[in-house]
Each structure stands twice: as C-alpha cells, then as structure tokens.
C-alpha cells in the first residue's frame, strides 16, 4: 500500500487500481460476514459476532490510506477493520470458531482478533477500550520516530466514554499521529444515538483542538480521500484528527439480533440497503465512468466467493486447541 496525497490525472491508472482494490476489499468483507452469519445460524460458531455489513466503505477507505506498518485498533464489530488492514480470512474464520490456527490461537474469538503482521493492535470488546491503546501507539511513533500513523476505529457509542476525551486531549497536546475514526451507524446497540449524544459530534473533538471532519461513510472514494488527507497531515506531525463516517449497519447489533422492530423500522433498513449500499455505490460509479464492467466485478465476486468458502472449510476442519493451552500465554 502506498501513502496517498492529492493525486493528479497523471496517475489515474493507480487511482483506478485503487478503486478496484477497494471494491475487492469491500466485497471480501461482505462475503466474509455473510459466512459468519451462516456459521452462527447453523450453530457452528461459538458465541456471537457483530457484523459489519453495510459499513464496509469506512474500514476499506480508511485503511487504504494507511501504510502496511501503520497501526489500527478495532472494536467488537471488527472483522471489517481486520480484513481491510490485510488479515487473511482463513485465520480469521479459525479464530471465530475457536480453533488453534486462528489469529489468537482461539483465545480471542470474534471480538479480539489481533495481528502484528498487519499492524492490527487488536479488536476490543470494551466500548472505547482502545482509545488509550491507539493513542499510546501514536506516542510510540513519535517517541521512537517511526513515523507510523495509527487509526482508532470506534462506533458513535464510544462517544459516551470519558476516556476517549482524555485520550484526544493527550493526543492533541502531544501532537500525536492518530486518527480517531468514528463510525456513526446511528445505534448504540438498541438505542438511537440521538438519545445518547448531546450537542454536535464534530464539535467535541474540535473543542480539544483536533482537526475534525465528517464524510459519507457509504462512499468509499470520499472516505479514502478524506482519510488520506488526515493521515498525511498526521504523518507530517501536524497532530491528531477525528473522522466521522456516517454509515449504517444493515444487520442486527449481533447475529442473534433478528427482531429489530422495537428500535428501528424495516423501511429505514430497506432505504439504506437499497439506496446506500457502499458496494453498489462504488460498482455503479465504476461502471458509469467506464472504469470497470459488470463482468469484471462479477469475476471479483466469484473469486472471492471461492476464497471465502475455502477459508470457511479449512477453518471448520482445523483442530481446537487442547485444554492445557488455556494456561499458556498468560505471561510473556
């Protein structure tokens, strides 16, 4: 991956490659998540999982703006972030199934996938739990002069946690290269964010001096463009930023959340799914502007479908850890 600045028409070939790459990534996430839901429905997956379907453009657009050794932190709804940062689906499925070949040897599960090789500091099941960690990684970047940028992903529900403001204050005081990436999908679990969030979201980081911008989270090009600017700014040492992506989760809060009428309408869901699907939006844009044709996109789908199916199968076939492994990895 390269670090993007403003691009001229000259490198439009690169730009198209980038769009196709982002398309591929979004589809990969979508297909991954559909299989997760399927594993749950077939009672093959222990526990629960929080699907990212509908929000793919956010993770993909932002991670596209990062270098391979830049860091991210993720959330309970983390599969999209992991995949966008470059994790491989088979080890992710294995982790979700509690298998030894998973990213965390089965110890973490869906909510704790971490992967040093792709700079993934880990998903966190405490809302806003990674605000400090991400800020600390940015501290290291400055302290050790590695020039890495960190993206801290979180849902708008994390705006309720005070530690986020503590962390943003520190980041701004110390001009740390960290982007707080807020995914506003409108709901904190089963409660609309307007019932939990007073004032204006963007005014909050701005009050701490951070550069604060919002973007249409269903438009991966817009997300990428804005993220690239903020990432570059951070890398130049100009300080942290807050990027608010307006998005929507198409499915339930978690795979078991199927009756959603009491907190949101079917019409609302339909509207988003039909009009605001980030994959459709990009596909339509590519075809309209003649940058890709339907067949090419279909090929991507079918390639990824085979990949994902194979990944699921290998994960299903993989062995569990043995009980004695429970006592390993407590201390380094």
């Amino acid at each position, binding site marked *: 991956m390269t670090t993007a600045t403003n691009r001229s028409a000259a490198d439009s070939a690169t730009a198209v490659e980038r769009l196709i790459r982002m398309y591929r990534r979004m589809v990969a996430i979508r297909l991954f998540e559909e299989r997760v839901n399927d594993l749950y429905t077939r009672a093959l997956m222990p526990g629960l999982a929080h699907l990212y379907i509908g929000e793919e453009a956010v993770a993909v657009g932002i991670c596209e703006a990062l270098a391979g050794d830049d860091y991210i932190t993720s959330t309970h709804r983390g599969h999209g972030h992991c995949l966008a940062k470059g994790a491989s689906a088979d080890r992710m499925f294995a982790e979700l199934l509690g298998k030894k070949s998973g990213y965390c040897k089965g110890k973490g599960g869906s909510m704790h996938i971490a992967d040093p090789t792709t700079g993934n500091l880990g998903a966190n099941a405490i809302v806003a*739990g990674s605000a400090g960690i991400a800020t600390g990684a940015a501290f290291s970047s400055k302290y050790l002069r590695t020039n890495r940028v960190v993206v801290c992903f979180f849902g708008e529900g994390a705006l309720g946690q005070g530690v986020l403001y503590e962390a943003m204050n520190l980041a701004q005081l110390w001009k740390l290269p960290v982007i707080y990436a807020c995914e506003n999908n409108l709901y904190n*679990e089963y409660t609309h964010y307007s*019932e939990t969030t007073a004032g204006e979201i963007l005014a909050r980081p701005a009050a701490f001096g951070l550069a604060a911008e919002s973007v249409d989270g269903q438009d991966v090009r817009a997300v990428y463009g804005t993220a690239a600017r903020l990432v570059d700014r951070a890398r130049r040492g100009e300080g942290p930023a807050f990027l608010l992506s307006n998005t929507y989760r198409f499915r339930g809060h978690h795979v078991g959340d199927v009756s959603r009428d009491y907190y949101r309408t079917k019409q609302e869901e339909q509207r988003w799914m039909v009009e605001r699907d980030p994959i459709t939006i990009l596909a339509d844009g590519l075809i309209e502007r003649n940058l890709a044709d339907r067949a090419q996109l279909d090929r991507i789908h079918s390639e990824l479908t085979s990949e994902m199916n194979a990944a699921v199968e290998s994960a299903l076939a993989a062995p569990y850890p043995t009980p004695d492994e429970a006592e390993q990895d407590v201390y380094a």
Partner: protein
Amino acid sequence: MPEPEHKATAEHAETAENRSFSASSAVTKVRELSFAEAIREALAEEMRRDSRVCILGEDVAEAGTPFKVLSGLVEEFGKERVIDTPISEAGFTGVGVGAAMTGVRPVVDIMFGDFLTLVMDQLVNQAAKVHYMSGGTWKVPLVVRATLGATRRSAAQHSQSLHAWLSHVPGLKVVLPSTPYDAKGLLKTAIRDDNPVVFFEDKMTYKMKGPVPSDEYTIPFGVADIKREGRDVTIVATSSMVQVALGAATLLDEVGISAEVIDPRTTWPLDERTLVESAKKTSRAIVVDEGYLRYGVTAEIASVIAEGAFYHLDGPVMRLGAMHVPIPFSPPLEDATVPTDRSVFEAACKLCKRP
C-alpha cells in the same frame, strides 16, 4: 386459605424455611419463575411500592437489556423511571450515587460485570465512603446490578466474576443470589437498604427456573442458606457455583459421601457462623466460586473457616475457582477454566480420602 409465611428474618433459625423453598420445588402454592423473571418481579414490586425507585442503564428500556431481564418494565413505569443511558458507566453510576444521596433510590444496570472496572471510582471512592466521610450524615441507597460468569463464549472482557473486589471494600454490601427465590428476596432487600449494594447475577442462570412464592417476601443479608444438608463434607458455593456444588453432591452421594452445600448469599455481610458450624460438623470444607481463584472470594471464606473450625478440621480447606488466566474464547479452553461438578466432586473425594 392463606399462603405459608415466606418472610425470612435475620434469625438463623428461620433459614431452614428459606431452604425448603429454594432447594425443592415440592412446596405447593409456589409458582415456578425463571431467575430473570424473579429479578424483574422484584423490581416491579419495589417500583410499585416506592416511586423513588428507578432504573438507569444501557438499553434498559425498550430493549429490556440484552438479556431481556427488564422486558416490560418500561411499559409499566415509563421512560422517566426506566432510563436508557449513553455508554457511560462511570457517568451514570456517579449520577446514581448523587441521586441516591438526594432522595431517589436508583438501581443501576451494569450490563457485563467486566465493566465494573469503569465504575470502581464511583463505587469505591464515592458510594462506599460518602456515609462514613460525612460522619454519618449523607446516605447512599444505591443498588448496582451487574452480571458475572463465564462459559458463554464471550471471551476475556465479557466473562469475569469480579465480586471479590467489591467484597474487599468497606461501605459496600455484596449480594450473589443463586436461585430465583433468593434473587427476588435479596433484590428487594437491596433496594430497601440505605447503603450501596452491588448485586451480582450469573448471566448463565437467567433462564433457570425455580419456585418463587407469589406472596411478598424479603431475604435478609448476612444469612447463609443451606441448600442441601450433609454430613461428610461442607461445600460452600456462591452464585453460579451453587448448582455445580449441588451437581457434585449428587455425584458424591453415589460414592457414599454426604455433602452439605451452603450458599452464603452475601459475601458482605458474611454469615461466618453458619459456614463455620457446618465445617465443624463435617470436619471438611471446600469453597467454590467462579471468580479467579487467587486473591479471590474463596480465600476469605476459606480463611474464615480454617480459623473458626481449626480444631475440627480433618484436612485443609480446599478452594476451587476460575483458573488464574484471562477467560479464553475457545470452548475447550474456556470449559477448562471454571469449576465443574466433576472437579468439585474430585476435590471432595480427595479431601475425604477416597480413591
């Protein structure tokens, strides 16, 4: 025909009565409720009785919490009394403390007990100390409900049983019900108490059914309940581990060991006398709790028994708790970390020197 008298009192003599309701379902005129229903009924009754009682927490209203424990309450009591909060555990617990000091009786919901990490200052430096620091002038009638328990495949940040921390803090009371009957009676007592009470519910127990009389009753704090009488070994178990201990007791029966199972029900105040007396009687004691074993609740209870029954014990007090590791996600790993019927059975056999 009147229902039998269910009000328990602080008298030890009366605990036999509670016991019969909680340990057996043979009593007539007693409905079967799930643990969750018992909690909900206690809240509804107290909210009807006292308009100052209200509920604060994440997704407590229409959603009725992710565990659906509170379903229906907002319909009866409205959104002024069943109040959805932002994801601000410290903030709304702090609000609970201040509200409790000034005339409201809030019941605060901490969805997963793991999130108690976020409210320790509000509970420990504020709620627990206000009464004392003010020389007894301000009171904090606050209830904090939190879940505990593993084996739900929820991994390290959603599976902990952190009640040892709260039990360590003077000024707090700590409740650990193990049956629907106890849950209802103890929660009503908690709401009426003028002190901050932390009330732990095992999330794996919510669906468990048990007898709950329809007549009103409360259960006093500091009164252990003998869930099963026995002669050869005392098994003290808390919360989720009571069923495990009862399961072990059944297995022990088969090898001719008669186990007494005692549930302290509150770790603070702690009914030391009942625990010690039982250990004196059986001369052997095992303590089982789902918190991390080391520096956990088992240590205090074992110490109390080891000291109180010192001259009667045949062997050391044994302890079983969660393995000293963060709770792993993978089922075979997670299952290895918590005590089971089998592991308690084996501990008892060892203590009783059976092969």
